[in-house]
């Protein structure tokens, strides 16, 4: 086993996780699972930021990842409040049934 891991492995892991998150967002019909897929994509992007912070030997990438985490926390709070309100008015979590703005 080599002592150094290629940087590209980290980036490919990030790409795989991002693609999984995108797949979940497109394929799933439960609004909470779609929201969790967004969190998965944000995590994948954070991994890229931190891998490049290592590669460029600068701490700025880690600061950006920190900001992404803060924004994700704010987004989760507001998004879950919106989901609660939708459920209170519609009594469903299926996005197919929340389509009153379609057509």
């Amino acid at each position, binding site marked *: 086993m080599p002592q150094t891991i290629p940087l590209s*492995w980290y980036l490919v892991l990030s790409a795989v996780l991002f693609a999984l998150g995108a797949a*979940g967002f497109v394929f799933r019909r439960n609004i*909470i699972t779609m929201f969790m897929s967004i*969190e998965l994509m944000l995590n994948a992007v954070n991994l890229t930021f931190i891998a490049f912070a290592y590669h460029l030997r600068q701490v700025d990438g880690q*600061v950006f990842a920190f900001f992404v985490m803060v924004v994700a926390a704010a987004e989760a*709070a507001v998004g879950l*409040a919106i*989901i609660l309100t939708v459920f209170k008015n519609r009594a469903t979590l299926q996005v197919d049934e929340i389509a009153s703005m379609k057509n």
Partner: protein
Amino acid sequence: MDAIIFLIFAAAAVIFGINVVLRTHPVSSALALIGVMASLAVIYLLLGAPFLAAVQVLVYAGAIMVLFLFVIMLLNAGSEKKSRGAWMARLAGVPLLVALLTILSFVIFRMYPRSVGVKFGSFAAGTVERVGSALFTTYLLPFEITSLLVLIAILGAVVLGYKELD
């Protein structure tokens, strides 16, 4: 040793990620997502970011995912139903996602050949001290704006969840 730890936790992250997408019950998806975040925290440690690894476990896996689980259980969400639109999205989406992943991997391997490596311990700037001093000097203005953002998010959540008393 580094490579073995990386491979174990990368495989764990991908397997948990597949579970997030494939599980039909939201609680299973949420638990798998916590697994992804914990695996990523170990990989952050390998990349020399101990502060972010701690924040990942505390804030992401701790606070945000508990909020998710709390809402799932509050709404008593069950397994999702299959629908026609989901089937069509799968038919068109899987080839597109495979193409996206292939192109991304190709570009990554072209831009960063194997000689560009990551060695554990050769970069130790991710300590609380270094990240904190960067946050409070270079990134002071964005940091303060972030505090405003969090305040607005709290107010928004309260307004949205507010229930009028009769």
